[in-house]
């Protein structure tokens, strides 16, 4: 009997406690909660103040993939080859005016004098980028024509371009 009463009172107590916390809105007095009202403009100003402090999430953590690496390599080789071509053409144009002989015959004869390792590395430095840029350029053009646009075919073509440019670049550097 006593145990029963004890259980009853704790039950009543816990119910009362719950009622004290979970009261209907009508029973909660306005002194319990405080809010501040701000206008739409103030709201936007606050948001923009917060936005000014937000950091930009890192992009360099993105995994290098065949997609992005072949694309940036295409751009880099394109810029490099263009710069070399401009240097060559401008040299042909300008340097003879300054007394420096710069024509095909002079270039060939001067180049032939250099040590073997220098000749090979210079040729490789030009051959591999040129081969890659040309072959990847063809992959790019087929995309523009609507071909190879699936992930699988694009990747297969990408690997083929890398393999082919290694082979042809090597062939140009070593045998031409």
């Amino acid at each position, binding site marked *: 009997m006593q145990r029963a009463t004890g259980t009853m009172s704790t039950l009543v107590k816990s119910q009362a406690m719950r009622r004290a916390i979970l009261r209907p809105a009508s029973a909660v007095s306005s002194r319990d909660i405080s809010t501040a009202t701000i206008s739409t403009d103030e709201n936007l100003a606050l948001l923009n103040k917060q936005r000014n402090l*937000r950091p930009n999430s890192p992009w360099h953590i993105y995994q290098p993939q065949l997609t992005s690496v072949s*694309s940036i390599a295409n751009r880099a080789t394109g810029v490099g080859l263009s710069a070399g071509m401009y240097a060559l053409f401008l040299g042909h144009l300008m340097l003879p005016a300054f007394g420096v002989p710069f024509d095909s015959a002079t270039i060939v004869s001067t180049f032939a004098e250099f040590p073997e390792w220098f000749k090979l590395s210079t040729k490789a430095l030009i051959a591999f980028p040129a081969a890659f840029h040309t072959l990847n350029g063809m992959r790019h053009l087929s*995309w523009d024509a609507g071909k190879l646009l699936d992930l699988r075919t694009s990747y297969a073509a990408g690997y083929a371009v890398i393999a082919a440019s290694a082979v042809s670049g090597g062939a140009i550097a070593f045998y031409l």
Partner: protein
Amino acid sequence: MAFLSATRMFSRQAFGSARGLATAATPPAVAAANMKRFQIYRWNPDHPAEKPHLQAYDIDLSKCGPMILDAILKIKNEVDPTLTFRRSCREGICGSCAMNIDGVNTLACLKRIEKDSKKDVKIYPLPHMYIVKDLVPDMTLFYKQYKSIQPYLQADKVPEDGKEHYQSKEDRLKLDGMYECILCACCSTSCPSYWWNQDAYLGPAVLMQAYRWIADSRDGKTAERLAQLENPFSLYRCHTIFNCSKACPKGLNPAKAISQLKAEMASR
């Protein structure tokens, strides 16, 4: 008699453990702890001067669900309740939990945790986005760009029976692979072009939806939709880098849609 006892024996074997009969009970084998370290990007707007940093959490994979979302929910529930991220459906259809996991943009609820304990998992928010808190990016610009292409049917004529815009099966097939987009932004935030020109370039997700409405035979505003893209930035910052199709967690192909969009622009 023997037959009866045999069936009784058989039933005890089959149902004995389930009904808690007094057979020799072996305690359930305790799974070996398989601890994996999660490095998670943290930034608190309440302390904005503190630079964003990686915080490490060690989780027992034997007591965790198989997906990354299970792990970060476990961290939030048991270790650090302040870890903040978006999530909803936990089945790869809402697009809320898009984040950069181990360098690749994907949905946390679809990305399985690699069991290899020796490698840490690195979890970053979507790249090159302004961060509200921890793994929550500010998607406002992304949604604005989506709204700008008017992603709703604009039919130029009322159907004959006044009820439904009819469409052939072939025309409906053209929309497959584009209508399934959940706008998670994994593709757009994987595009380096979108990183550098976020304010002017629309990004693969929005462009694929632009093409979804152009390809829709029921839509009559194709000319206007194409005209909207006639500038150096909205469409033509795409250089076919192809990161978008690689990143899409739903297996869609934004790169192909953009290529078809460029073809439409060329022949308009």
